[in-house]
């Protein structure tokens, strides 16, 4: 009897080990983005390690130090560079390095004899509060000539005002009854499952990270709840995170002012609106409000919507991938290409104006 139990247990253990091995092998090529802890920046992608992201889109690529997504830092230093900040849309695990708009922009500039390095330093979950809060650090690290900040409606609204954010993130709050804003910054800490997995179980990292990525979805399933809105598979009507958000309900003017002051007004905002396949050129109220607020502070405002009619005519949506939903979730290579074209035109306009 005991022998039988031992034999069965042995078989089950062998099957489990084999499952973990094969699962890890699959995860290493589908959802694998190793990170390291940086005391200043928090958890950043591991320099030199190739990441694979095939669960939404078909991305892979390499980061260098300080969370810059490119194979190496510019030979002549980063001074005067175009620093690209943003959230998961600019982190863009969903596309390859060659498809990333920062890479495309630098290539286009180079082709036009403009030798300006473009350094993407986006971090998933960042909002306007984080861009303001980290301004001095990033300016000190990279000495950028101009800063491109990719934003959506929620970056000025709920994302920038969420109190319960994890360490390494910032949020706004009202400092007094007069409504003056201040930033609450939570310094980075090396905690959580991600840190534990990276440091303790590097040999099992991909499967742990993949399972962690699915955590919200599975928890929602366990509790019979609707899926989290940010999951691409759940993005039904809106491709841009929280649907129905009202920018007018937030002190966007003050946020924009803080942003302009943090970067000495050398900011280009890249705005990502929703894409309506039937009315691609229609501007929303939120976009109008943000554009006016930005212009009032001397911030350059570029909306991806300007390229929407062109994309629609070509039968392309800027969001969604062949392995997720049409026009849902993060932006694809068409969106990145459109952004690179728009930013190139804007940079040229700025350069001509300066000269």
């Amino acid at each position, binding site marked *: 009897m005991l022998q039988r139990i031992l034999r*069965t247990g042995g*078989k*089950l253990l*062998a*099957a*489990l080990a*084999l*499952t973990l091995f*094969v*699962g890890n092998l*699959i*995860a290493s090529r589908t*959802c694998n983005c190793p990170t390291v802890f940086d005391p200043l920046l928090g958890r950043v992608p591991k320099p030199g390690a190739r990441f694979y992201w095939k669960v939404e889109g078909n991305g892979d690529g390499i980061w260098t130090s300080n969370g810059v997504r490119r194979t190496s830092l510019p030979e002549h230093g980063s001074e005067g560079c175009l620093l690209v900040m943003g959230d998961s849309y600019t982190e863009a695990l969903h596309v390859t390095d060659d498809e990333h708009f920062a890479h495309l922009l630098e290539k286009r500039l180079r082709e036009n004899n403009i030798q300006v390095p473009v350094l993407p330093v986006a971090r998933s979950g960042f909002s306007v509060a984080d861009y303001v809060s980290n301004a001095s650090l990033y300016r000190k690290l990279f000495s950028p000539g101009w800063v491109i900040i990719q934003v959506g409606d929620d970056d000025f609204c709920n994302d920038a005002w969420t109190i319960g954010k994890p360490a390494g993130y910032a949020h706004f709050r009202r400092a007094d009854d007069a409504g003056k804003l201040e930033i609450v910054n939570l310094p980075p800490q090396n905690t959580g499952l991600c840190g534990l997995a990276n440091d303790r179980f590097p040999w099992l990292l991909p499967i742990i990270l*993949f*399972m962690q990525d*699915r955590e919200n*979805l*599975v928890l*929602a*399933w*366990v509790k*019979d709840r*609707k*899926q989290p809105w940010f999951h691409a*598979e*759940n993005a039904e009507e809106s491709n841009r995170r929280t649907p129905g958000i009202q920018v007018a309900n937030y002190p966007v003017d003050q946020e924009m002012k803080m942003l302009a002051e943090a970067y000495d007004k050398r900011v280009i905002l890249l705005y990502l609106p929703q894409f309506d*396949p*039937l009315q691609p050129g229609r501007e929303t109220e939120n976009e109008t409000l943000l554009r006016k607020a930005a212009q009032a502070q001397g911030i350059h405002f570029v909306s991806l919507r300007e390229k929407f009619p062109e994309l*629609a*005519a*070509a*039968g*392309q*949506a800027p969001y*969604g991938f*062949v*392995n*997720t*939903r*049409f*026009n849902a979730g993060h932006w694809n290579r068409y969106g990145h290409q459109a952004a690179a074209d728009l930013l190139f035109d804007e940079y040229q306009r700025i350069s001509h104006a300066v000269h």
Partner: protein
Amino acid sequence: MLFTSPRYIIFLAVTLVVLALIPGRTPKKRALAVASCFFYAAWDWRYLGLLLAISVIDYWAASRIAASEIRRVKQRWLLVSIVSNLGILGYFKYCNFFLENFNVASSRFGFSVATINILLPAGISFYTFKTMSYTVDVFRGRLQPCRSWLDYATFITFFPELIAGPIVRGSVFLPQMDRVIGPTAERLAAGSSMFLQGLVKKLFIADRMALVSDTVFATPGIFDTATVWCGVAAYTIQIYCDFSGYSDMAIGTARMIGYDLPENFKMPYLSTNITEFWRRWHMTLSAWLRDYLYIPLGGNRHGVLMTYRNLFLTMLLGGLWHGANWNFVLWGGLHGCALTWHKVWVKRASPHIALPALLGWIFTMLFVMVTWVPFRAKSFRDTMSILKSMAGFAPGRYNWISVWLFYTIILCVIAHFVGWLIERRQHQNTASVWTGWLCGLLGAGIEDATISGPYLVLRRVTVAGAFVVAMTLLMLYLFAPLMMNPFIYFQF
């Protein structure tokens, strides 16, 4: 309480533990009836009374039919059963449909009738058909009436097949009531294997394909021809895996409890003609329509033309059974035409022209795919828009072809190959080298002794078998959309 939800898994586990702990055959059955009522009440407790009322009416009518020797009295009680079942079905399912159509017709005369706010009771189409077949079978003398109402209520409320079938007849289920139910090691192993197969079909394939088909059917006018074809192909796979996955889970759950439910799907997409398709698709409904509609209409007993008429009418009503919508009537009508056409072909042309099986399969699949369009589309207008796009007329501009569709097709081809091996083994009654090798490796056996059809079930622990199960669960965790999508047939 969806079969794919954690709540159902907990409910099932508790039910099985209770059935294992309660001693005695009758108390187990009572506990099962209580669990079934709880399951139904979890959907909507207000309609539990309706379900129990139907069971009382039909139990009473059947016992009166059996008690009487006079045919006219028997007929009267049968009429009571049929009128009450169809009346309830008609009121809840078709009342607003008729009122809306009446309003459309009468609008030119300037009057209309207000529609009624009715919530469709879950599973009403299935359990009314189930109860009607019982009284008809008793009337025809093919079935002895149930001696106890509680036994009958256990049959009617049996939760695995209550909401969306298979449509189990009394003649199939009631003889099993003498069994001592409750989980055993063998039942659990077989039932959970069947359940897992259904879970994979639903979570891994159907819900994934829903992402594709829902997008295309939501805004059909914006996509190009290739995308629309892919959307229709995705729905073709989705509806099969959704419904047959549900049936697998129902059959697996019933098996864990100790009952056998009849086979509902037999790889219908391998059919080489439309008649074969209907012998393999939703088999319990096809058989029900044949025995309780087509044959009473006259079947093939009154000449060729009447046979064709009966066939067409049966399919038309079969379409309407799916839902109070002209699209379903169109779908049923098209299948009725195809079945009639196939009968004509077999009679007139097939003795002279031999159609290769591959060509037959292509024609059948194309027809089935095209007819899924009215079945799935929200309106007649959408149906026409999609059909136009498929034909290459007025297509939209957007091209979006999901890569998951191709992965799924590969998976389906592999699964159908294994299914074909099992079916071949069953027909030839010999163990082929392939199936023997597969079963030996997985520690599995082929369950084909029961009415549930052939299933690959795990019988002993092997490394390969445990690996396949663990890997399946891991892949479900990592890749299933987990969307809490209700089963398509729940709406019927």
